[in-house]
């Protein structure tokens, strides 16, 4: 099964909501851009029943090039983490697949 993409989501909005293709494409694009902009502004994003996108500031720490064993410092950074909501977790938990 191939991955769900922005094109698939836009197609779904086109078919089920009756938006034209351009509108559908734009709304999908601005949805993800809105989340990116908020996170870029150091603002947590909470999507009810889906999950939260949180920000974490990491201190610098010593790292290592696993190939050469050479020590390289890992700089301090800000990272995004996703914490799935209860509803999403419950829906996904019971997946019994063949893979």
């Amino acid at each position, binding site marked *: 099964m191939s991955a769900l993409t922005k094109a698939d*989501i836009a197609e779904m*909005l086109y078919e089920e909501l009756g*938006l034209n293709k351009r509108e559908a494409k734009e709304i999908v694009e601005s949805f993800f851009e809105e989340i*990116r902009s908020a996170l870029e502004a*150091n603002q947590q994003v909470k999507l009810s029943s889906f*999950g939260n996108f949180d920000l974490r500031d990491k201190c610098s720490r010593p790292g290592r090039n696993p190939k050469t064993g050479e020590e390289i410092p890992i700089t301090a950074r800000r990272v*995004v983490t996703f914490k799935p909501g209860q509803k999403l977790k419950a829906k*996904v938990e019971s997946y019994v697949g063949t893979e």
Partner: protein
Amino acid sequence: MNQDQLPPKDVELAVKMMLDSMTKALTNNQRIEIRGFGSFCLHYRAPRIGRNPKSGTTVELPGKYVPHFKPGKELRERVNASLTKA
């Protein structure tokens, strides 16, 4: 969201439908790949013996799937750049 052309009601519904389609994909163990944003997939958690911290009794916890998100390059870079700007 800046959607001048669409009534707020439509935007609200569209957002709900987008989240629903993403939830549905993950429920079927279908990956989600959004270029420049990130990807979602399921990770398997092996069965384990858990413990009720109150009573101390052991409980068998079956294997399960949990949602996982990996931020994409653009999101990673923009968020990290905000650290030095602030």
